[in-house]
């Protein structure tokens, strides 16, 4: 169980793996996530499922190298097994025919956006997808998203591909053009989601965001993933991961995400000294 069947590098620091997890694959619904541990001393980290294949009994994970666990994952080869994968967790995306749905994925956020886009598309919505990244090399899964969207707009911050600018500018463009939008779904780095909500709030567009707070158990037992939505404390793992973006306190989320910055660096430096860590290319040299 939890064996890696396929693995590829999607871009600098971004990886994708297809993993054997038949029970999770068949129970999973769009928007849900899993919690994994790479090895017996590993931490528990949540990752949204990017895709699944019920017949083959697999789930697909996409991750960006940030801390010791994600770097560790990058050193795992086809045939290796994860120590633990627990899921599906969290509430599934509420899918219904809204009309026109704009899905916005920033950077790695495109991966969790994919199953939601697919679900929205299958439910009969007109789906406009906006996929953005800092630069062309960091764009991922654009082809996959394109296949399940009615329209696809790609943007890069540096203009190296598609529209030159941020995803928020693309959204603003759609609004300015008078596109009738019934729902916005935004997944990406917290500053991006906050900026998207800034735009959609002015246009009065209902906006769903998927949050990625720090978690431990993922079943509502520990409360590490506390977020504030409409002034109320909610647990990201069981009340989310999706929330009404217009009501989320993003500043609090950013502060809470930075809680373990120090120890994370220690763990990463520690990992760099291990045989596995030696295989990794770290920004600024290995």
């Amino acid at each position, binding site marked *: 169980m939890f064996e890696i069947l396929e693995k590829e590098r999607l871009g600098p620091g971004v990886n994708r793996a297809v993993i054997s997890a038949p029970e999770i694959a068949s129970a999973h619904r769009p928007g849900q996530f899993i919690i994994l541990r790479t090895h017996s001393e590993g*931490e528990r980290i949540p990752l949204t499922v990017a895709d699944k294949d019920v017949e083959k009994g697999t789930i697909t994970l996409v991750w960006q190298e940030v801390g010791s666990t994600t770097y560790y994952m990058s050193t795992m080869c086809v045939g290796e097994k994860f120590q633990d994968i627990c899921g599906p967790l969290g509430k599934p995306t509420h899918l219904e025919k809204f009309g026109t749905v704009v899905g916005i994925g920033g950077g790695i956020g495109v991966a969790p956006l994919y199953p939601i886009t697919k679900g929205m598309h299958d439910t009969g919505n007109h789906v406009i997808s906006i996929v953005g990244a800092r630069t062309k090399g960091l764009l991922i899964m654009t082809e996959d998203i394109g296949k399940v969207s009615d329209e696809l707009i790609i943007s890069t911050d540096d203009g190296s591909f598609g529209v030159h600018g941020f995803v928020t500018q693309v959204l603003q463009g759609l609004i300015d053009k008078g596109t009738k939008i019934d729902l916005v779904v935004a997944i990406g780095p917290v500053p991006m989601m906050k900026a998207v909500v800034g735009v959609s709030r002015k246009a009065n567009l209902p906006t769903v965001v998927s949050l990625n707070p720090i978690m431990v158990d993922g*079943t509502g037992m520990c409360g590490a993933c506390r977020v504030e939505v409409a002034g109320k404390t909610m647990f990201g793992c069981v009340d989310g991961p999706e929330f009404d973006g217009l009501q989320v306190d993003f500043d609090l989320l950013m502060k809470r995400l930075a809680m373990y910055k120090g120890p994370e660096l220690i763990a990463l430096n520690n990992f760099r000294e291990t045989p596995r860590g030696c295989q990794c290319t770290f920004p600024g040299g290995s």
Partner: protein
Amino acid sequence: MSDEQVKPAKKPKTPRQKMPEQNAIERAHNFYEVALGYENDLALLEASRCLQCKKPSCIKGCPVEVDIPDFVQLVKKGDYIGAAWKIKEKNSLPRIAGRVCPQESQCESKCVVGAKGKNEPCAIGRLERFVADYAAINDDGKRPALAKPTGLKVGVVGSGPAGLTLAGALVKKGVAVTVFEALHELGGVLVYGIPEFRLPKAIVRSEVDELRNMGVEFKTNWVVGRIETVDDMLEKRKFDGVFIGSGAGAPLFLKIPGENLNGVYSANEFLTRANLMKAYKFPESDTPVAKGRRVVVFGGGNVAMDSARTALRLGAEVVTIVYRRTMEELPARSEEVHHAIEEGVKFMLLHAPTEIVGNDSGWAVGLNLQKMQLGEPDASGRRRPVVIPGETSTIECDTIIVAIGNGANPLVPTSTKNLETNKWGNIVADLETGRTSRDRIWAGGDIVTGAATVILAMGAGRKAALSMLDTFGVS
């Protein structure tokens, strides 16, 4: 005074034998077990204090009705392994119960030796621990024969004390049992909540292995209510019955300003990081936990004591328990309070936190407190803490652990069709049988009663097992 008047000296009574423990200064900085357990001679001495009552009242004090005089009699004879098996007839987890049961308010409170208050009761719990450890360490490999398979199968939600006890009781009777656990390790609160220094993980593992050897199957990383519902277990997996022992896993907060600042933990999170995820070994283990300099714990129960003592061991300079009543009302076991004080935990009594103060980067830096006094008794009979107007204070702290209890985790109750719950979200179940509003579904432990003790959960597991056997017609 003439010699004649001196009465012949009575044979001196053997006092209750203390259990050796690590010295307080040393143990406050390590995660090894505090209590070291009896050696053979101490156990024999302590067992000799048991009167072998004809009508033993100690058994009535035991939620799982262990045949206490019988096992103590075997200790007296030096048959420690036999004594352990005598306990295991009623309790599959004696190494755990011997460590975490509040015996002073259960079996030992009913012991005739201690009845008149002149002498202390027989140390039943310490003897239980001794024989169970002895039997595990000197395992002779012999096991009582299990009943023939009945063809019945039962699914258990949660591998905590209730589920494990039920599994043990059923498997002995030839019922196939599969236990489903959400976390990656088995034991529930025994591995994520109760600290290593009170209940080593290796002990829990050995008890679980014993159940596995008896044929109990375990499935980890399995969140019932998400991957599969209880109804799925009955219909698709064809379980003849399901027992829900999912625990009280939803931490409560005070709902005061600042509770979402960095450095503020629920006791569940703090203990899970430290215990289950081995944050005390960081960075050898990957999971960190804030190693506070000045730590404050809210609450006065066993979990508050566990949190405070864990914080101390992680290297905190000052650990203060803030409690709104007095020492008298502390709900924690007196032994735990005593240990905490010995190790240097401070108590700030008759104080209630009103606000957690943070800095610009979102970290807790201080705490505002309100001074309280005791007023009239409330419904629970305890005197109610009342605000003393105008008497407030502020203390400096960087880590705050909220240990004020748990609500019911809604994941399992709400995903099970027509399962009756009360206004707090706890499953409604008969306390004598564990039967719920649904046929073929039993429940017990904290998900029914709200946060209680390990042994009460074990008791609930045992009662539900007996009810299941009765329902299935297995004798």
